[in-house]
């Protein structure tokens, strides 16, 4: 089970990447900061970084509104 932002839970599956998590949560905003177990992931590596089971993922949206 993957914990997102200390709240939402996602099923883990083999070969799951950071990008899969973003797609599943429908996080499409461009200005985000992604942390995987306290380690910041660079934007280019979203779809290549594998996520183990029981990882903690934080996805921070840097928006403060128009």
């Amino acid at each position, binding site marked *: 089970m993957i914990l997102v*932002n*200390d*709240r939402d839970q996602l099923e883990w599956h083999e070969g799951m990447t950071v*990008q899969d998590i973003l797609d599943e949560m*429908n*996080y*499409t*905003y*461009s*200005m*985000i*900061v992604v*942390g995987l177990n306290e380690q*910041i992931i*660079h*934007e*280019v*590596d*979203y*779809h*290549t970084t594998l996520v183990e089971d029981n990882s903690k993922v*934080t*996805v*921070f*949206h*840097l*928006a*403060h*509104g*128009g």
Partner: protein
Amino acid sequence: MALLNKSKRIDISVNGVKISAIENSNLIDSIKEAGIDLPTLCYHKDLTPNGSCRLCMVEVEERGKKKLVTACNYPVRAELNVNTETEKVKRHRKNLAEMYLGRWPNVPVIQEIAEKCGAVDKEKYKSDLTDENPKACILCTHCVRACDEFIQEKILGFAGRGYKRNVNMPFQKVDPHCVGCSSCAFVCPTGAISIDDNLNHPVNPEMIRDHGMKVNAEMATLDPYQCRMREVGTANIVEVMDAYDLLPVMNYKYGQHKDTPKMDSKVMKAKYFTQGHPDQCWHGCSMACAKAVEHFELKTGPYKGDKVIVDGPEYETAAGGSNMGCFDLDFIVEYNFYCDTYGLDTISYATCMAFVMECYENGIITKEDTGGLHLPFGATNDALEVLHQMARGEGFGLEFGQGIKYLKEKWAKKCPEKAQFIRDIGMEAKGLEYSEYVSKESLAQQAGYTLAIKGPQHDEAWLIFMDMVNNQIPTFEDKAEALYYFPLFRTWFGLYGLCKIVWNDVAPKDNSMKYPPQQAAKIPDHVYNYWKFVEGMTGRELNEQKMLDESARVHNLQKIMSIMLGKGERKDDIPPYRAMGPVTVEEYESRVLRYDKQLKDNGIDIEGKTSEEKVQLMKDFRYEQYRKVTDAAFTRRGWTLEGVPKIERLKELGIDLPELVEIVKDKQ
């Protein structure tokens, strides 16, 4: 260039060092990453590589073939074996440096490059073109590119061909349209360009310019990958709000709609907004987000048939469209235009019209009340007719123009059995119509809206992503801290004549890697830029605490004046329920899983309860939550539980002036 997260990484080797480069990135980035300091002159990290000085040439082996390429603009597309120190490459560097030395012998930056490349002989390439001036222009093209990419004015350019090439403004006269942003002077490596600063006579103009340029550079390089402000302005978040279920649809009932793609920023860019045009609303703004629709033919009203220019639509106006159930951009652009020229607030008009439409669809009002207009959600033409009536001051338009608070009371009297429903769906507080965000799932934003002193406008606090998505402020204390910090931080810009959007609608490239997420959310580098701006102008050093205090003095003054006018009471800070939760069963069922879970998680038994009963349970629960967060927020702000600033808080801020204390002393 493709969005960053679509491209992959490619392994290359630079002088034997393994580097994992981003596909289509410029080779020089990887060479720098390998710790090699290539000699460059025309390369500038914030400008599109020009490849004109040729000093950065390196040997590249790709698919078995060896060739010399300029590193600054060579796209990494396949495995490469790079050698930056072959004999041939070093020889060419020396020759090229000698060519520069021959032409501009006394320019410091050229003497440095010559030293780095082992070039010594100043006579070899001496000619009648040789320029002894140490501040000579060395045709590195930075200024021309900055005038184009930093500020989009395109005033500076080249003249002449071949050896006659030189940089200037047309006819070598100062072009009256130069806005004096001094980007060209900033990027010039030799000091060839000088421009004296503006009419404010700041203490330290360089300090202001150097920090302003950082943001200009970010806009030039990062905007296409971030908010695309130069392409679509604030309308870039239309599709984002829809994706996060926050776009107000049909009087805030829902947060998204299947027709949103018909009106999102992609359509605006493709068919409406003029692209590639500098749209700043004051000189020197690199964000330039005031997009416009040109030659738009009006279809209704007194100016029907005219081809006009329309400022916008910005996000609020577009979201007003979805709030009225109108997803047709032609309608949105037209109501944007008529609101502007009639001097009407698009937000008040749209939110009020959404309220009228919901009342109309629920039979609270009929054609008799609307002077024969048919006004269900999506009634674009009749909605426009109301707008024209408002201008003419006649018919239903006149009544509509009094706002939701007036209509609420009037129609509550007309149908007393639906009075509560009417008050729940009338999205106004303190008489001001809500701006266009769905706050019902974010307790922090509900308070952000209704604790704002002037009324529910989000420029005091926009906490939805922090609260609902990032889950950064789970506890009441967190929320209270945010409801203390952000209203002060965001309104600080309004004390100095600054635009808040430039603070965080573009962020430095390393912002997310340099700061922990909590900090990164405030974009610390940009906040530091503003402190330096204030110091450069006034000589006063600023830090976060001073900044918040400056803002808190004005914030409390406004609160006190509101109290004086009999308005600043706690009862005015209560949101209509539509802003806090599902008013109707229909709404409840559209998010039934989330709502049932929230009730159960908070120990509320919903076993066997009907939807109506669950709606009521949710309502009571959320108003209770709201009461708690208000208490926490007032306490954190140093106010009484009635929201009256305490005298010791005024003392703390140094604004315990007699005429202010007079107003609050007997309300402590």
